[in-house]
């Protein structure tokens, strides 16, 4: 069994008296490509914020790279891509190069300056996502899909061991979604980057993921794409259907 990259033991999380996650247990072993699916409001983004340390669980234990999250020091091992195509300030006057460089800031540390080798690292990350032609364009002048590639490059520039992506393909056209998954697949296979991907495109995701997890307040399914595809409609409606009845059913 390979080393676990993320471990969650009995996680409970409440937002102002509203229980969001109940008894979530799960593990991502190294090298997996895990797809996280579930209905809107099911708690996917919340789960990711817990892993990133933006929120703290009420109960339970989170480990990153086998270290309890409170003691985990190597944030640069985690690359995060959020749903930026929608939320980021499109007018921000920065070039692709400048945006990708911000990925290195924390790793370099305080009182250190970018050297030539760092610039080469930034360009290499931009090349990996096929955006070298746009390296010195303002990010605001790019299409949504191109911007998303830039954010992947920002995560890649640290050579992360785990990439977490929260609905990265919202607003990206079909052809580019496919190219996007191919890029993730390549990074997963060639560089052994463990992937955790939140998405509503279950169709295309099942082609690339090695594991699929369904989350609706608690984990409803954890298996491989074949098992997921063979789920009956009844099972699926249980996951996606009405969260209220699901909770009632459990209680």
């Amino acid at each position, binding site marked *: 069994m390979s080393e676990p990259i993320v471990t969650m033991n009995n996680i409970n999380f409440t937002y102002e008296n509203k229980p969001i996650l109940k008894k979530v247990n799960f593990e991502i072993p190294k090298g997996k490509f895990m797809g996280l699916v579930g209905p809107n409001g099911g708690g996917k983004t919340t789960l990711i914020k817990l892993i*990133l*340390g*933006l929120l703290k669980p009420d109960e339970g234990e989170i480990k990153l790279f086998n270290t309890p999250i409170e003691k985990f020091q190597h*944030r*640069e091992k*985690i690359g*995060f891509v*959020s749903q*930026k195509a929608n939320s*980021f*300030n499109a007018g*921000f*006057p*920065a*070039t692709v*190069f*400048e*945006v990708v*460089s*911000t*990925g*290195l*800031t*924390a*790793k*370099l540390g*305080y*009182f250190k*300056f*970018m050297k030539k080798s760092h610039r080469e690292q930034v360009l290499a990350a931009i090349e990996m996502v096929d955006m070298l032609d746009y390296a*010195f*364009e*303002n990010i605001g002048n790019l299409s949504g899909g191109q911007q998303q590639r830039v954010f992947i490059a*920002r995560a890649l520039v640290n050579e992360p061991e785990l990439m977490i992506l929260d609905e990265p393909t919202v607003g990206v056209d079909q052809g580019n979604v496919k190219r996007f998954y191919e890029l993730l697949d390549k990074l997963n296979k060639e560089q052994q980057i463990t992937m955790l991907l939140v998405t509503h495109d279950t169709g295309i995701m099942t082609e690339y993921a090695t594991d699929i997890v369904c989350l609706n307040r608690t984990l409803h399914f954890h298996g491989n794409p074949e098992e997921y595809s063979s789920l009956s409609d009844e099972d699926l409606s249980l996951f996606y259907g009405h969260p209220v009845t699901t909770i009632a059913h459990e209680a």
Partner: protein
Amino acid sequence: MIADFIQYDFLRYTFLTGILIGIIAPLLGTFIVVRRLSLIADSLSHVTLAGIAFGLMMEKLLLITFSPLYSGMAFSVIGSIGIEKLRSVYKNYQELAIPIILSTGVGLSVIFISVANGFNTDLFGYLFGSVSAVSQNDFLLIFSIFIIVVGIITIFYKELFTLSFDEEHATISGIHTKRIHLLFIVLTSLVIAASIRIVGVLLVSALMTLPVAAAMRISKGFKQMMLLSILFGEISVIIGIVSGYYLSIPPGGTIVMIAVTILLLSIGYKRSRKSTNEMREA
């Protein structure tokens, strides 16, 4: 035309101070504009006014002479920390901090000014700037602020830029965003205090934002925008001070109007480039 500025000490100090603030005001202004904090600069300038009024009052009451710039600076720094505290108290209504601090600043100013027996020419200079107000002591204080600001921005450039571009990402990657932000706000308050003698309380935020607004239209990337803003800031300050002196107008007014002119030119330039491109494509 520049001869007077070389000949007379007081003009020389004004001119040199102008050159310094023409650099640091737009330098910080670039971060202020992209982080949408322009109004914070405005409220801090009013708190600085309260500090200056306090200084003038103490001068009058205690018959001591010290530069009110010091009390202005102290109030500005305290105000900047106050804004941050309020922003964390009203997490979902962060902009509330601005009117609270601004009105406190104006309220205190009114009280201090009346205790000090009303308006005088000194105060007028603090409101709109003055070409004859910079003493050697003031200049040395402003020069120290210049060194501190440029030094800290150089050292923390990458953190400040990362924070400005994407605060959430900066936090996740482990940057101490709260501390960096506080450092930034304190620097802003120092720059405001330094700029007040030349441009005045009411126009200081204009010198921090107008050159940036102009540069933003025509630059590629953040660094280029920063350098262009400084260039525009310098042009505004130099032409503004010299013309203000010869026309006997407070330099705050002339500096800001030059900055407005540059802004209009940059908007026009972008428009005309756009329409020629469209014509070419058609």
